[in-house]
């Protein structure tokens, strides 16, 4: 019962979607209500994640966990953002006080997290990007061509810039091979769901 119904529902949805694609009558009847339904689902699907985050930090504070000060900061940041969004800019989502938080707190923090990836590439390049195997040699050779062509100087290639030729012929063939392979993998997964064999979203028991 706990697994049969979800598996059957998922299988039914796959069949309905494929039939709706081929039958304009079916599509016209069910497309907009189901699309709207998906919007509602995805809005509510966020609630459990937020609630468990709050419960985690509240529990830490109540248990006097050594990191409870940080939990306090996370919770006050959350409620300050909600306070700005709901109370200060009363009607709109992107009101002035909320925009200030996003522009000067949220976005800079998020951008800083990814900024030092560039630095990791340089330190790895110096210490580890050696052409030890045939594969690594080919890879580095292609990478150097693309790097030079992207930002250093225009390298002449067979028919136009070298890096453009590389991106539109050999690399394009590789990416196309991957797209075709992934497409077959997606079909296999949809078939598993259609046959009620894909237990991923249902869990064990």
């Amino acid at each position: 019962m706990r697994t049969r119904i979800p598996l059957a529902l998922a299988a039914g949805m796959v069949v309905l979607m494929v039939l709706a694609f081929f039958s304009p009558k079916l599509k016209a009847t069910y497309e907009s209500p189901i699309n709207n339904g998906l919007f509602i689902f995805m809005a509510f699907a966020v609630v459990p994640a937020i609630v468990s985050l709050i419960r985690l930090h509240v529990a830490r504070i109540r248990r006097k966990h050594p990191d409870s000060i940080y939990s306090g900061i996370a919770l006050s940041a959350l409620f300050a953002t909600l306070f700005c969004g709901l109370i200060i800019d009363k009607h709109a989502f992107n009101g002035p006080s909320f925009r200030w938080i996003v522009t000067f707190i949220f976005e800079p923090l998020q951008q800083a997290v990814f900024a030092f990836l560039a630095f990791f590439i340089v330190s790895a390049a110096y210490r580890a990007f050696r052409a030890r195997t045939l594969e690594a040699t080919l890879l580095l050779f292609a990478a150097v061509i693309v790097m030079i062509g992207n930002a250093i100087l225009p390298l002449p290639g067979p028919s136009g810039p070298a890096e453009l030729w590389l991106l539109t012929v050999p690399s394009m063939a590789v990416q196309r091979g991957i797209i075709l392979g992934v497409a077959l993998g997606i079909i296999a997964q949809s078939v598993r769901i259609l046959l009620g064999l894909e237990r991923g979203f249902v869990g064990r028991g």
Partner: protein
Amino acid sequence: MSTSIGVWVAALLTLAMFSFLYRENPVYRVAEHILVGVASGYTVLLMYYRVFIPVVWNGIAHPKGVESFFWTFLFTVLALLFLAPFVPRIGWLARIPAAIAVGYAAGQELIAAVQARLFPQLLDTVTAFDGASGAPAVIDALLIVVGTLSVVFYFTMTFRRTPVLNGVARVGVVFLMIGFGAVFGNMVISRFTLLIGRIEFLFGDWIHLIPS
């Protein structure tokens, strides 16, 4: 130096995040937890104002028609099942809306796998030689066809490696390495741009060392 409070706040938070490079420290953890808190607040406000109110609230409070009211109400009730895990013993009910969402996506992806991935890409491979006049274009077309085929067959997993399949796989590896080299090359300009952006902000907008 900049005189705007906002720029100062952003600059100090940026340095707090970068301090992790030296060692994990309290200043970094404060910045990290502020990020977690604000990100959650952002999501709640976005979903409330831009999805809950226009689709759910207005869909029920003043619906376009009886039928649209029924569908919105039905899906809202189903969506509430996402909260079931907070009630003991009926947690599994959350699988119902999840199953519908998974089935919806799987159905659409199944159609798109053939209509938007296989057919158009196979068509462009099959017609690779059509417009090819002159040696370079023919060679390019040949490389594209051989490259695509060798990569598709490199990833055969359950066929025994006959000499033919081994040969194809060896060609496939050569193409794959060139392909990953291209990914590597484009990754570099992408990751560098992020660090350049932060340096432009810190030394430009904050310290006014860089002429903006």
